[in-house]
């Protein structure tokens, strides 16, 4: 790989651009996985012309509670580390 063709400021710009695009791709991948997982958890009836009662709020709650779960798990791990450190 030959980077000497670009001057430093161009290289930095390029890096920022690529970082942003990679973050975008990771975001999309998270949204696809969450949609798939929350669909299986919340949509149990045969699809109708509208969502069944409770399905829409279940989808939004599923995303929020999954993120709560991730934060909660980090907190539990931190607490366990501290109690071992005492």
């Amino acid at each position, binding site marked *: 790989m030959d980077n000497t063709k670009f001057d430093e400021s161009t290289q930095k710009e390029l890096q920022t*651009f*690529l970082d942003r*695009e990679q973050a*975008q*791709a990771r*975001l*999309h991948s*998270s*949204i*696809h996985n*969450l*949609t*798939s997982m*929350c*669909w299986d958890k*919340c*949509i149990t009836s*045969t*699809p*109708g*012309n509208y*969502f069944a009662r409770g399905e*829409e709020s279940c*989808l*939004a709650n599923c*995303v*929020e509670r999954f*993120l709560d779960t991730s934060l909660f798990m980090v907190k539990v791990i931190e607490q366990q580390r501290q109690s071992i450190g005492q």
Partner: protein
Amino acid sequence: SVRSEIALANAQELMNKTNEKCFAKCVTKPSSSLSSTEETCLTRCLQRYMEAFNIVSKTYTARISKERETS
């Protein structure tokens, strides 16, 4: 460009997931052709999966920006 490649990959992934989920839900006993009941189910399932994707997208991005503000 990198940007349009990502958008295309995203749309393709959405179609793949939709096909997979709706086939699983609507075509439980594959026979010699798609029945009209199965086709109705698939049409509705497609609409619901796209809506689900939008709800998840909005909820997730709203939460992520809220987390960023508070931290």
